[in-house]
């Protein structure tokens, strides 16, 4: 069977996302758009993944849990885990390592923690813009050692990307690389390429996606498909 995956989405916890872009709304909209495996990866925090898991379970979609980490080089790196527990465990290390500057809501936006009913239950007071004190390559190894997927985000974006900030894509055991525009140079390269929505607002949900083949829409199928480069795209 072919499954539709979207491994890059934010919620109202990310300062740059819409305040009414709740994890439940993300899950509902993704289900509507035919996504089978959906990840929530807010900037440097997993505070909304419990609400996201409950929403995914309710709407009948496979949730993947993680963060979009800002490395010390200010490269964005997706860390994705099979369970909420694994993601929370890993996020403790990242939270401790963050440069914590007080958030200015007017300039950067709210960072709301919400429950599955879209009630605001808290707000992160330091700016989730980052960065961590850990380097890009160290974090790749760290994510993999926690059985997660390590995917450099939007490598072809002109800011906060491996190509823009590092100047090149270092050789490393990435689970995949994410691109906004598919590029033959990378499609023929050593890493599987995925496309994700990087949704910060409702209308972004499902704007980019990737397809994998497998028996069940679960994390193991996802991991195997990536390892086998068994991925395809909207044409």
């Amino acid at each position, binding site marked *: 069977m072919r499954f539709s995956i979207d491994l890059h989405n934010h919620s109202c916890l990310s300062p740059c996302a819409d305040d009414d872009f709740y994890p439940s709304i993300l899950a509902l909209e993704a289900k509507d758009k035919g996504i089978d495996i959906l990840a929530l990866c807010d900037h440097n925090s997993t505070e909304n993944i419990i609400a996201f898991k409950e929403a995914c379970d309710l709407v009948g979609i496979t949730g993947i849990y993680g963060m979009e980490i800002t490395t010390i*080089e*200010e490269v964005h790196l997706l860390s994705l885990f099979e369970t909420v527990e694994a993601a929370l465990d890993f996020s403790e290390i990242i939270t401790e390592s963050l*440069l914590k500057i007080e958030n200015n809501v007017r*300039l950067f936006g709210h960072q709301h923690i919400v429950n599955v009913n879209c009630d605001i239950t808290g707000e992160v007071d330091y700016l989730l813009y980052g*960065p961590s004190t850990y380097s890009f390559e160290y974090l790749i190894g760290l994510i993999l050692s926690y059985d997660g997927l390590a995917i450099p985000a939007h490598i072809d974006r002109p800011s906060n990307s491996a190509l823009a900030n590092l100047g090149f894509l270092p050789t490393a055991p990435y689970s995949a690389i994410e691109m906004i525009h598919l590029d033959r140079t990378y499609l023929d390269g050593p890493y599987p390429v995925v496309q994700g929505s990087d949704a910060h607002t409702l209308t972004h949900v499902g704007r980019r996606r990737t397809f994998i083949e497998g028996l069940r829409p679960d994390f193991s199928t996802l991991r195997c498909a990536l390892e086998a480069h068994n991925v395809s795209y909207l044409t």
Partner: protein
Amino acid sequence: MANIAKVAEALGYTVVTMKDPERNVSGGYTGDLLSDVMGHAEEDELLITIQGHKNTAAVASLLSLTAIILCNGREALQDMIESAEMEGIAILQTQETQYQASIRLDGVLKALR
């Protein structure tokens, strides 16, 4: 004391936005890592960078910087221009490198003093 209008004229760079031409310029900070800029740039300085996106305007506003100089011909994204206009931060643009712009700014500020 140098204001941004005089500094921009002396530099001869393209003015992308300048809502408040009277704002004072005390000096400059050159950097592309915004977390580093946040920790080191100071009020009324010009930020010399290649980062032409909205977060640069937000960081500039947070620190009360007077303007952003975009180097190497980098374009300011539309949301950056809107944000800078709202916060009264000027954006200048040049084909020069950050190194050249830093030297030029230093010369202009000394001449205007």
